[in-house]
């Protein structure tokens, strides 16, 4: 058995190289924010058309 390796800090220190994002954490927050926005839009869609 090997102990489970901890979080890979080297992987997270490598920048995503996407304009506007300096860290992966920032990119994940953007994707999460996008999900919340989509949920809000679907809620509005349901309210308008149902």
């Amino acid at each position, binding site marked *: *058995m090997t102990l489970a390796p901890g979080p890979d800090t080297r992987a997270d220190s490598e920048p995503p190289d996407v304009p506007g994002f300096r860290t992966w954490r920032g990119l994940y927050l953007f994707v999460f924010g*996008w999900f919340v926005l989509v*949920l809000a839009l679907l809620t509005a869609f349901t309210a308008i058309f149902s």
Partner: protein
Amino acid sequence: MNLADWIVLLGTLVGIAAYAAWRTRNIRSLNTYLRGSTSTGWGTIGLSVMATQASAITFLSIPGQGFESGMGFVQNYFGLPLALIIVCAVFLPMYRRLNVYTAYEFLGQRFDEKTRLLGAGLFLLQRGLAAGVTIYAPAIIISTVLGWRIDLVIVFTGLLVIVYTVTGGSEAVALTHKWQMTMISAGMATALVVLLLRLPDGLGFTGAAHVAGALGKLQAVDFSLDPSRRYTVWTGVFGGLFLSLSYFGTDQSQVQRYIGGASLREGRLGLMFNAVLKIPMQFVILLIGALLFVFYQFAPHPVFFNQAEWNRHAQDGKFAALEARHASALAQSQSAIRAWLEARASDDAAREASARAAMVAANDRADAIRVEARAAIAAADPRAKTKDSDYVFITFILTELPHGTIGLLVAVMFAAALSSKAAELAALGTTTTIDLWRHFRPLAAADERRDVRVARRFTAMWGLVAVAFALFAGFAENLIEAINILGSIFYGVLLGLFLVAFFLRHVGGSAVFFAAVAAEALVIVMYFSLNIGYLWYNIIGCAACVAFSLVLQTVLPPRVRADEVRAG
């Protein structure tokens, strides 16, 4: 279908397969064969992940789901973006750092060989048994509608996918996925545009959306806490997170799509591409179904969309009477919709409410006749297939689209079947080669060329098994549901193994192995003794595996734990 449709259909399907086989014909490196090209970018990885998940049933059944039950199914995908963030942050960096070919190889490095074999065995059992379904399920629908022989459809699609997957392995799969997804997107966009153009004059998208909404087809989100409701925001976020995490994080057919590529960055961006686009894509596919519902309020359509099944049983006056009553109910429903649209434009709230109630009642009457039609078919033949929503979209394609685009849309269905099948075959071949063959013949692993030859043979073997199963499935259709159930019975424990591996650092191989065996036994006993929805077994299996691992780790004799730590 005319000559133009056949040219488009065969040209696109065979053209893409031949191009991929030709481009990848000289692969000799095991790494390229199993993980794809080392220069693959995030766009190709993203499309490949998407194509693997989207089977032909996605494009045949989901519009039918929108037609029949509305948009609520989109909530099933709410857990997917969250799961992909976890896979990106935790699973993918670990797989790349340990340089593994399969997800189960990681279990071997983290725990021990018996746990690795258990993980690989669970995957092979589940995917291997399901191997024929991804070919059979669309083949039965397409062959029924077009009057083709199902055995020929199965053999054609099976051999096509075997040829390019065996030739080029993972690289050919990724290459074909890119072009197949491009074609699928173009085909679905064409169908949506034609559908919008075919709506009655003056109705337009907004009018159609208001009609669909008033008739209960556009409720995309439901915040209800009622556990009896099948699709809610909560089941989507929590259940969907669970399912997506096991599918994207531990199923080799997905892991193989993002584990290769030029760098960790490319794999991560490919997964984020899916996290952003998947819900909007499913929304559009369901919306096509809801708009088809409105379209068929104004266009004549059969009382039962699977016309082959209907014609097989519609021998007496009872069926003719149902057809006549349905046509009459449809005319009344159409008048009621027009009356509601006029009332809505009049700004008279009372008139609008009254017209809406009349429209809903007229629609309910038409629906009731469709239910009667299904009951009549079931009464005539208890073994008949009474679910006709899968035939709604394909009926629209064949009757409303111009020639050329019919061929394109039928090609879309086949491309989706080929794309998910190819990923499955590559994953089955890779897992059999790496986790079984190389495990039991470790000395042979040094010969890379031989490894590639062996991987090709195993991939071909699984392809032939899939074709044979699909041909056999016609004689035992209830096997399909049994296989879905079997998947739920194994998926949860498999995810449990990986969650322990990633998040419970002190748990060792013996504890997790026996915990997984006990959890699997518990799930099987529960399945045979309880009557609950089979999707729950995903959560039960995973929770049991994690909990049993923690308990066993504390009660195992200290000697076993010490041996494991020394071995590590």
